[in-house]
Each structure stands twice: as structure tokens, then as C-alpha cells.
């Protein structure tokens, strides 16, 4: 690598490092607005024109908060946890190809790279949970680790199918492979749904936010953080959601391919619906219990994603012929699994109601 190339790459990485917080600010604003719209109220309105400066005001306020360390906390774990959680998000942004030329580094193993790094941020959450010394943080941290680790498996399997189809592990090749033929989201509908669900559970978003739900564990591992460190946890969460949405478009919806508009416009047109879907879920779905969460992953998502890999393999080898019945079979299997395994409602024997004698008019004095 000659000197100017190194400088250019460093410049590009700097742009990404600065863009991540701004991106998160925009997403926080969009989420509060959509939540407001769902609940028939206005989101942030008074700060700046139409409330646009609201998240900027939040960020500056968080920057100037007092920096405190709880006395029961282990200082090292408490201090380093936000960094370990936030940084992998930026590393992954470096590799995502928004358009063929708008990408920082053309890594040929980028699919593997993209799914390896979020596992590091799980360690950060353990450090936060254990380091801040409060019982709720510990409980939230352990729940989050169990959830993130177990949902990593269906996430990877769902993407494995696409890797087989595209025949390569580089995101750019996957998008190019989708250029002329049909999008992988159509060939692998179940894989796309599993990818989104596992992605949500990976970053503990509703309806899988057992670990950070505020009605039981009051914010989970981030309970003892204040000011800029808590802001880093929030930014990491929103950067991860953006990564989930952009990976969804790249892998399943054929990144920048589209008839007439330029590449990056198509990219945005496909990412925003997924983002709005994630925010829409936050306003309409309650939270799962921990054991239902785990049962859903191990008993429903993993078998389905394995089935999906088989479908991808048959499409690769035999083309469209036998794949159509396979896709239909996988959809039926998904529905059957969904009905039988996932929604095991505890059947309690119903009893007939106990009639209470309506007192005769004479008795009602």
C-alpha cells in the first residue's frame, strides 16, 4: 500500500468514526418521532425547527454530565465496558458496501468479519453488568449474554444459505450476484425473516428486550452508567440497528441494484423500511419472558434456518425446478413450527363459573 492510499483509508475511517454518532443521533430522533406517531402524540417538537435539534441537545447535555464511578463498582471493568461495546459497531461500518465505490475497504471475507465482531460487544455488556456492582445490572447482563450468544447461531445459519447461493463470502460479490437474477430475499423468504428476528434479539430490541427492559431490570447492564458512558451504550445500540438494516438490504434485497435511480438512493429506499419496521415493533409488541425467548431460538429458529440452508443448496445445484416446492415446504414448516412449538400456551383446565344466588327482593333491604 503506497503512502497516499494509507492516508486515504485513514481519512475514510475517520469519516466513518465521525459519521457513526451523527447517524445514531438521527436514528434516535426518527425513533422518538415514530413512537410519538404510533401513540397519537408529537415526538420532540420544541427544540429547534420541528424538534430536529432535540438529540443534539441530548448529546451535548450528556457530554457535560458529571463523570462518576459507583463505589461498589470495579473501576476497570466499569470504565472499559462502553468502549468494548461501541467500537465493534464502527469496525463493522467500515466494511459495509453502500454502493460499489462508496465502501472503505473491499474485504473479501467481509461476511465472516461482519458477524464475528458483534460477538465482542457481548463481552462489553458482561463487563458492564458485573463491573457496575448492582444486582439489577448483573441480572440484566447475564440475560443479555445468554440471549445474544444463543441468537448468534440462527443469524449465521440464515446468512449461510445466501453465502452458498452467491458462492463467496464478500458482501460486494453477494450484491453483484443478485444484480441480474432474482433477489435472495425472494428465494429465501424464511431466511430473511429469521435474519431480522435474530438481529433484533442480538441487540436486545423489542420484542426481545428482556435484558434491558425497564419494567423488570430497570435498564439492564447500563443502569449504573451516566453521562457520556451511557450515551456510548445508546449510540452502540442504534449503530447496531443501522448495521442490521443495511446488512438486510445488502444480503437479501440486493443492495444498490434498482432500475433507474442511482445506487445509493436505492440503498436508502431499502434500508429505511427495515429501520421503520424495527421502530414500529417498539411501539406495538410487549416483551417475551426469558424462557420463551430461549425456547423460541433453540426450538424454532435454529431448525428453520438449517432447513433454509438445504433449500439454498438445492437451488444452487438444481436451479428453479425443485426449489419452488422446497420454498413452499419451508414456509409451511415455518408456520407449523410457529403454531406448535413457539406459542405453547399453558393449558389450565377451565372450570364452570360458580353461580351466586341473586338475593330475593325481600332479602335486599
Amino acid at each position, binding site marked *: 500500500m503506497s503512502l497516499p492510499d494509507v492516508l486515504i483509508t485513514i481519512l475514510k475511517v475517520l469519516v466513518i468514526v465521525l459519521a457513526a454518532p451523527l447517524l445514531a443521533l438521527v436514528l434516535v430522533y426518527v425513533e422518538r418521532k415514530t413512537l410519538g406517531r404510533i401513540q397519537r402524540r408529537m415526538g420532540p417538537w420544541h427544540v429547534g425547527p420541528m424538534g430536529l435539534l432535540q438529540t443534539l441537545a441530548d448529546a451535548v447535555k450528556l457530554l457535560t454530565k458529571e463523570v462518576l464511578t459507583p463505589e461498589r463498582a470495579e473501576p476497570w471493568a466499569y470504565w472499559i465496558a462502553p468502549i468494548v461495546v461501541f467500537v465493534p459497531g464502527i469496525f463493522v461500518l467500515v466494511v459495509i458496501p453502500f454502493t460499489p465505490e462508496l465502501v472503505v475497504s473491499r474485504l473479501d471475507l467481509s461476511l465472516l468479519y461482519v458477524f464475528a465482531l458483534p460477538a465482542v460487544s457481548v463481552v462489553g455488556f458482561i463487563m458492564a453488568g458485573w463491573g457496575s456492582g448492582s444486582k439489577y445490572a448483573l441480572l440484566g447482563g447475564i440475560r443479555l449474554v445468554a440471549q445474544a450468544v444463543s441468537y448468534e447461531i440462527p443469524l449465521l445459519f440464515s446468512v449461510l444459505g445466501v453465502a452458498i447461493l452467491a458462492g463467496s463470502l464478500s458482501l460486494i460479490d453477494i450484491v453483484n450476484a443478485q444484480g441480474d437474477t432474482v433477489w435472495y430475499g425472494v428465494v429465501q423468504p424464511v431466511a430473511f425473516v429469521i435474519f431480522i428476528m435474530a438481529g433484533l434479539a442480538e441487540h436486545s430490541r423489542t420484542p426481545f428486550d428482556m435484558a434491558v427492559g425497564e419494567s423488570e431490570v430497570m435498564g439492564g447492564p447500563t443502569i449504573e452508567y451516566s453521562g457520556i458512558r451511557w450515551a456510548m451504550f445508546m449510540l452502540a445500540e442504534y449503530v447496531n440497528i443501522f448495521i442490521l438494516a443495511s446488512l438486510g438490504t445488502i444480503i437479501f434485497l440486493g443492495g444498490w441494484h434498482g432500475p433507474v435511480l442511482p445506487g445509493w438512493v436505492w440503498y436508502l429506499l431499502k434500508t429505511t423500511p427495515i429501520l421503520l419496521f424495527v421502530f414500529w415493533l417498539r411501539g406495538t409488541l410487549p416483551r417475551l419472558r426469558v424462557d420463551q425467548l430461549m425456547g423460541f431460538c433453540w426450538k424454532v429458529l435454529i431448525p428453520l434456518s438449517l432447513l433454509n440452508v438445504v433449500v439454498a443448496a438445492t437451488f444452487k445445484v438444481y436451479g428453479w425446478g425443485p426449489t419452488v416446492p422446497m420454498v413452499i415446504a419451508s414456509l409451511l414448516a415455518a408456520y407449523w413450527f410457529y403454531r406448535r412449538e413457539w406459542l405453547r400456551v399453558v393449558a389450565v383446565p377451565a*372450570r364452570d363459573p*360458580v*353461580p*351466586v*344466588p341473586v*338475593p330475593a327482593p325481600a*332479602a335486599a333491604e
Partner: protein
Amino acid sequence: MAQEVAGSRPAPTKESIANWARATLEPLGGTVVVDRQFVEVELTAEKLRAAAHEISKSDDPEFSLLYDISGLHWPDDGELEAVYHFFGGWHAEGITLRVRVPDDRPLIPTISEDWPTANWHEREAMDLFLFEFEGHPYPEPLLLEKDMQGALLKHYPQREAPDMVERFKQRGDVPFEIWKAVRPEIENG
């Protein structure tokens, strides 16, 4: 127990409960009074546990709800009175037990074996009326701390209305300039 009873038998009336009370509670030394709103039985403290057991065990006028234990303080004749209201689960009739105890030795046996809800009612009566329920499984204070108990007794001190003039003097001459600094901010928005 309440299930098969409800459908078949008519609801007990006040007279049937009074007869039942005379039959079972009179031998325990209780005097039954009927002209009140509910049938009332005055008892001595020693017989209370047996009477409560009778009421919880009885099946014909079925009683399964202990509504509350209300304490009363009669300072002039120096007595504390505990009023127990029992009511039926599937019918509307009820029975009341009254126990009077001298207020310097307010000893009443607990009835929390037969009536689990009595556990907290007795703890509350302990807090507010300084009753002593011997045999209570967990006699810790419920509402008030140890040094503040006996709140509903008549001679419990109360805070008089504040003398506002003296309170402003007590606050001293607090500079109000800070607040003036806020005033223009609000006036011109």
C-alpha cells in the same frame, strides 16, 4: 368448598346466623346481639381464638372472608376494643366479633392460623393501637417505625397549624435576587 354449596342452598339470613351464633358461640361465653347491622358477639380475649376457629370451620352459614380488624380506643373508660368483621364468600351476610381489653395490658390471641389475612391486619393494629397479639408469626412493625407507634390512640401528639409569620423569620433573610433574575426571563418568554 364454596363451589358446590353456592348453587344448591339458599343464602343464610340474619336470623339463621343469629341462631347459629347462639348455638355455637354462646357456650364460649359470648353474648349475641342481633339488633345491630350484622349479628354481633361480644367475647373475652381468651375465647377469641376458639370463636374464630368455629367461624372459619362452620359450613352452614359459610364465612370465608375476614374483612378487617378495626381497633377502637375508649380513653375515658381506659379500654381498647378490637372489632372483627367476618363475611360469607358466596352470600352477603356477616358476623362481627367484639373484644374489649384494658389499654395498659392489651393482650389478644392471634387468629392467623385459621385466617391467613389476619396476619397483616393484626400487624397494622399493633402499629396503630399498640395491641399485643401473642402467637403472631411475624410481629414486626408494618406501617410505622418502632419509635412512632400507637398513632391512632387519642393522646397521640399532632402537629399544630404552622405560625406563618414565625416561619418566615425562621427562614432568615434569604436573598431573593436569584428569583428576580428569573422573572424577566419568564415575562418576555
